[in-house]
């Protein structure tokens, strides 16, 4: 038996009116990779905040035993000094500083306040070597991709003599290959004896690296099992949602009609680097009642394609035509694209999709205000009725439609964005990563909504980095790589292997 490095016993954390954690226990053995799974809002982050001292000792009930002794962390600095380091979903690097400066931020190699650059750069190089990065220590972090930035974060943790490394959704923003590299690094660090906790929604990744899984649901620790007992996605999902998920994608009988939209010879150049062609000569079409998928890796140009079609919201020197029902339409501004019958649900709902401090009602009507106004004067009654209708139709869980969207969970926020675009009355909806950052239960509901849209005769274009999702939802799949479409296939003939091979062979 290995030693236990960390044991959290019967942790209960109460906020006014809510029990965020109720008698949660977690036991992490030395040198293992321990995965914590749970839906959004299950209490994973709260648990990590208790562990790292964000909620200091005394503000919760229960005990933390760390490295053989009772620990009572007062703040983050306290837990970091003991070697517990969390790498958050949102990276905490300063983009305009170099890698070296970032690694030793707050912990500089300095004498009397004067930084020793030689030591900094040497140590940086050593640390970068450990995480498999070969960029110069003086490279600005801004110039690195998200995947490399994630590695820099890990190097930063190594610089602090980490003993327990906690990764919160480390691959949520990474491409497939970067994710694989990161998981490989985790396994390598494990081989060197590092204890790690990973919080992840991606169950295939959990299965790949975890030695033990603890599932948390509604503030309770539901189960904990090790690789020897068998870690399967089904078991994790069952424990996470409290029921078994026989079918992760609701069934739909496709009823595909006339062609609605056709995009021809679509090319787009980068808004800042005028010589970089980001979308190259793309052709595709969407029919009524059809769900069309666009598969590809992060950075393949899918979002850029969608945003450039939707009112030229991205890029420059855009060429090509968009036809609706066989007639060319003007999509040169967002309002024209909306008028032509398009809607685009962004992948980044917090910064591009919602006005977080506004109410659900105001967000839903935003893209089609004239519909709830006469002569430019808003009819608040009509507005409230519209919001109420979508709250019921889409099952937005909220005390009322006059709540601010910032208080909603990710899944419900996504439903608000969808409501906004449904109210704009489009014929074709482009959904960009519609289930990103949403828990399993809410995902299922969103899939159901997509099916309803198709059943209502709309055309749906679905961009997703999760291939099983595309395979489970779409009627037809296009594959995009490096700005161009490299394949098209009916979903029935598609498989992950076939899509990947199209991407790799290009």
């Amino acid at each position, binding site marked *: 038996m290995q030693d236990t490095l960390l044991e959290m016993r019967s942790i209960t954390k109460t906020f006014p009116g809510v029990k965020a954690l109720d008698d949660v226990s977690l036991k992490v053995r030395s040198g293992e990779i321990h995965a914590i799974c749970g839906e959004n809002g299950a209490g994973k982050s709260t648990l990590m905040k208790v562990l790292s001292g964000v909620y200091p000792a005394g503000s919760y009930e229960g005990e933390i035993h760390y490295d053989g002794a009772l620990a009572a962390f007062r703040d983050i600095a306290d837990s970091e000094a003991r070697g517990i380091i969390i790498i958050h979903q949102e990276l905490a690097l300063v983009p305009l500083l170099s890698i070296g400066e970032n690694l030793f931020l707050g912990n500089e190699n300095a004498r009397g306040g004067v930084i020793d650059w030689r030591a900094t750069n040497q140590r940086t190089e050593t640390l970068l070597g450990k995480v498999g990065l070969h960029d110069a220590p003086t490279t600005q972090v801004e110039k690195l991709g998200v995947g490399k930035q994630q590695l820099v974060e890990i190097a930063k943790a190594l610089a602090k003599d980490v003993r327990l490394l906690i990764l919160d959704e480390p691959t949520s923003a990474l491409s497939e290959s970067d994710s694989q590299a990161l998981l490989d690094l985790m396994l390598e660090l494990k081989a060197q004896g590092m204890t790690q906790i990973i919080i992840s929604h991606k169950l295939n990744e959990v299965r790949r690296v975890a030695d033990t899984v603890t599932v948390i649901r509604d503030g309770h620790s539901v189960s904990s099992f090790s690789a020897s007992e068998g870690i399967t996605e089904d078991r994790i999902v069952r424990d996470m949602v409290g029921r078994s998920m026989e079918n992760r994608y609701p069934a739909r009988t496709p009823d595909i009609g006339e062609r609605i939209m056709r995009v021809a010879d679509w090319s787009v150049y980068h808004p800042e680097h005028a010589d970089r062609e980001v979308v190259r000569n793309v052709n595709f079409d969407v029919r009524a009642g059809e769900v069309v998928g666009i598969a590809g890796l992060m950075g393949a140009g899918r979002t850029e394609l969608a945003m450039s079609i939707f009112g030229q919201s991205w890029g420059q020197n855009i060429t090509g035509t968009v036809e609706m029902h066989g007639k060319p339409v003007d999509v040169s501004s967002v309002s024209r694209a909306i008028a032509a019958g398009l809607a685009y649900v962004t992948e980044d709902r917090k910064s591009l999709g919602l006005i977080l401090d506004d109410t659900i009602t105001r967000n839903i009507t*935003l893209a089609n205000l004239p519909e709830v106004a006469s002569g430019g004067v808003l009819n608040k009654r009509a507005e409230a009725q519209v919001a109420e209708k979508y709250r019921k139709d889409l099952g937005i869980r909220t*005390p009322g439609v006059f709540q601010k969207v910032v208080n909603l969970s990710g899944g419900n926020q996504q439903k608000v964005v969808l409501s906004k675009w449904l109210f704009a009355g489009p014929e074709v909806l482009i959904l960009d990563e519609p289930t990103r950052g949403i828990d399993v239960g809410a995902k299922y509901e969103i899939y159901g909504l997509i099916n309803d849209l198709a059943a209502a005769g709309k055309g749906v274009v679905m961009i997703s980095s999760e291939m099983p999702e595309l395979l489970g939802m779409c009627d037809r799949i296009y594959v995009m790589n490096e700005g161009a479409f490299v394949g098209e296939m009916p979903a029935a003939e598609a498989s992950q292997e076939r899509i990947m091979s199209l991407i790799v062979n290009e």
Partner: protein
Amino acid sequence: MSVAENSTNQEGGSSRIGTYLAAHLREYGLLFALIAIMAFFQVVTGGTLLKPINLTNLLLQNSYIIIMALGMLIVIVAGHIDLSVGSVMGFVGALAAVMVVNWDMSIGVTMVTCVIMGAVIGGAQGYWIAYWKIPSFIVTLAGMLVFRGLSLWLLEGQSVGPFPREFQVIATGFVPDILPGGDAMKELVGARNFNMLALATGLIAAFWVVWSGLRQRASNKAYGIEDEPRAFFAARTAIIAFALIFILYKLATFRGLPNVLLTMGVLTIIYAFITERTVLGRRVYALGGNEKAAKLSGIKTERLTFLAFVNMGALAAIAGLVFAARLNTATPKAGFALELDVIAAVFIGGASMSGGVGKIVGAVVGAFLMGVLNNGMSIMGIGIDYQQMIKGLVLLAAVIFDVYNKKKG
């Protein structure tokens, strides 16, 4: 129905009032602060503050700040700032003086030209801000210097005045009493004068506040918007209605409704309506709340930003006319540092530096609060040194209160 809906219904009365108060502390706080400050000065100035003549003065003195605060609120809600309004106001006043006094042009033509000039100036700044994405702080800082210089140039460093009588009435005139019964009331209340129109205006305004409040309450209830506890609603509405009647009664016993009050009142109602009830207003809030999301929702954010500055320029021009008429002369220093008072009024009124938040009524009350502070301290004979310090601290306190409140909530 949903689980959460039930839970709000089950919560007890006292805790509901508590949470409501916590969520709306800012609005009540502003009203309460205004009342407290007025009461304080009324006592320490021995009743001078609320004397009809002083009340009339108070309104006239702050009219141009309030007029500009309406435009500034929109600019700030849109996520920008305008530092040039003091200079633009001074420049337009100078232009009016030169046109009327030196060139003998008609007052009508002058006023129209001046407001158009203000809008053009606003547009000239807004163009760079909206379409070239130059930070508004920089563009309007430049504008502040340019238009201060232009005023000096236009006036050749001299004061130009006086204006003809017909121009002065813009700021110093009163609306003639068109209603009968003034003489009878004069006897009744023992005043030297009594203006029935002013009293009627007060009564109508008070009635409107009560009526629209009740209507709003009814529709809120119908749509499940968080309800203001009855006692709060009653107290707040009663205080506002009473204050309106009281102030206009006081004005009635002096010289009646100042022209400027009418202008100010009408503009405030128009802008409150635009910001709260129209598609245009809603889009400005969306623009300030999240520009990218607004743009992706089909809102023409550039044009809206441009228009916010055009509007600000026009309002600064109106303020410039009022200011010049009130002083009866245009000086190169007119409006100096006034932009800071206007911006302070908007922030005291609850607007957020990051945009998307703020109300017209808040900005007006904020301007009044500053005005009462100025006026009260002047009556007390407090030196300008202390006045500046106190005003600065009030602004800081208001914003700290906002931020603290937001963190807690």
